[in-house]
């Protein structure tokens, strides 16, 4: 029986969702943070999309958001010229890091000790989170606003993208190692540590490069301008979304388009696979996040696999054995839930 994808829509934002990020897998599951132009980034349970809390404090559109690996901290980048670090368990603001222009991107190191920021002032900044009062280290070189900055190679290097270039920097020496030039605007960048792969989108292209050498590996063309793409952890699939409101799923090895999904009511700005690869999340101009199954029809999170029809007679027989309770005990618990329909209080007529 053919099954059709049921996306799960996460509502709550009132303006376009421009960035999203998953945490790693923690003993409490994994989590998802979304950045929104309404200035109120939200934390959600990663596998269900259930809202957990909203980080309140920014005074402008939030352009970037990230979680640290164990989802204990969150960081956000906003149009109010600040980046903020938050306690992701309590929702409290821990630090406000002042910048000289709109901040667009934030990223934690693996050990959560350092935060990388980048934005319209064209500078990369590295903050030591254990010394919040200390001045950040600054790396200059970009000639246009920085859209995305990521730690890579076990935090020994930094990848940053501005409008037309992607640059690789050495963390220790703070110098540029290599750069790539594009004649179209770079819309997004994703770093996959296992395999050191960099996913870059520009125009209708989804390109894969080595994160170490920046050498190209392969690239695919989509039917429409793509704003974001994500590679599955096992590198079997990739998903991409952009200006035609659709999500595309490709086979990474063959480049074959496997599926496309309609559902969003506006351009898709960001798309990411979950850390276990079982679902991917998309954020759109329409103000929603949607969760999509990687394997359609599998029981996972809120999606429930359908079993073949059984005889209705069988279906009517109770399967839960509860011999300890007598009918009277069950009646007692059942009576808690019933309302009195016929009220004894007299109606007051006007």
């Amino acid at each position, binding site marked *: *029986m*053919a*099954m*059709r*994808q*049921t996306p*799960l*829509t*996460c*509502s*709550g934002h009132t303006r376009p969702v421009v960035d999203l990020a998953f945490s790693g897998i923690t*003993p*409490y*599951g994994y989590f998802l943070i979304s950045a929104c132009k309404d200035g109120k980034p*939200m*934390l*959600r*349970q990663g596998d*269900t*999309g*259930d*809202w*957990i*809390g*909203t*980080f*309140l404090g920014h005074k402008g559109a939030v352009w970037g958001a990230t979680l640290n690996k164990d989802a204990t901290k969150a960081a956000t980048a906003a149009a109010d010229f600040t980046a903020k670090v938050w306690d992701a*368990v*309590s*929702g409290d603001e821990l630090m406000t890091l002042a910048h000289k222009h709109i901040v667009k991107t934030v990223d934690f190191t693996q050990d959560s000790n350092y935060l990388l920021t980048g934005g319209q002032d064209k500078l990369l900044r590295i903050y030591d989170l254990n010394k919040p009062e200390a001045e950040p280290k600054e790396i200059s070189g970009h000639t246009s606003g920085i859209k995305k900055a990521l730690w890579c190679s076990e935090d020994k290097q930094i990848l940053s993208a501005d409008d037309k270039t992607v640059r690789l920097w050495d963390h220790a020496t703070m110098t540029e190692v290599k750069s790539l030039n594009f004649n179209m605007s770079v819309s997004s960048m994703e770093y996959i540590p296992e395999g050191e792969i960099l996913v870059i989108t520009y125009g209708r292209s989804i390109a894969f490069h080595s994160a170490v050498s920046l050498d190209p590996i392969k690239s695919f063309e989509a039917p429409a301008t793509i704003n974001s793409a994500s590679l599955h952890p096992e590198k079997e699939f990739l998903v991409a979304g952009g200006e035609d409101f659709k999500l595309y799923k490709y086979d990474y090895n063959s480049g074959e388009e496997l599926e496309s999904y309609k559902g969003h009511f506006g351009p898709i700005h960001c798309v990411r696979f979950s850390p276990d690869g079982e679902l991917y999340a998309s954020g759109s101009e329409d103000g929603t996040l949607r*969760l999509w*199954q990687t394997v*359609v*029809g599998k029981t996972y999170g*809120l*999606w*429930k696999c*359908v079993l073949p029809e059984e005889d*209705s007679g069988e*279906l*009517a*027989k*109770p*399967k*839960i054995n*509860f011999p*300890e*309770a007598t009918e009277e*005990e*069950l009646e007692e*618990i*059942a009576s808690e839930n019933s309302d009195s*329909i016929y009220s004894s209080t007299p109606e007051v007529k006007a």
Partner: protein
Amino acid sequence: MQTPLAIPVPVLRFPRGPDGLSRGFAPDGRRTRLKPEAPGSQECPVGQQSQESREQRARAALRERYLRSLLAMVGRQVRFTLHEGVHVTAHFGATDLDVANFYVSQLQTPIGIQAEALLRCSDIISYTFEP
């Protein structure tokens, strides 16, 4: 050649949104460990736990009975008691996820027979059928 109609993947419920009242991060809500902690690391009055789990099992049994009663009702003639002393009969088709509406057919109303209809459960006081 027409492709067969695909069935949308069923979901248990939709993701919960913000409550509209607070900023969230409820202290008891979020951090429930997925894997049970090592035995002896938690302290709980044993008697209270057992009473709660009995109640929970009782609730589960009642809930299952109710859901199976709905399944047994499919295709049967059901008599509904609505407000204002109105009684209608119909063939029960299905209910929705939250049991907010009943989909029925051949609804016999005081003003005629409706081939297909949705009855709001909030309008229903009681219903009865013979299995």
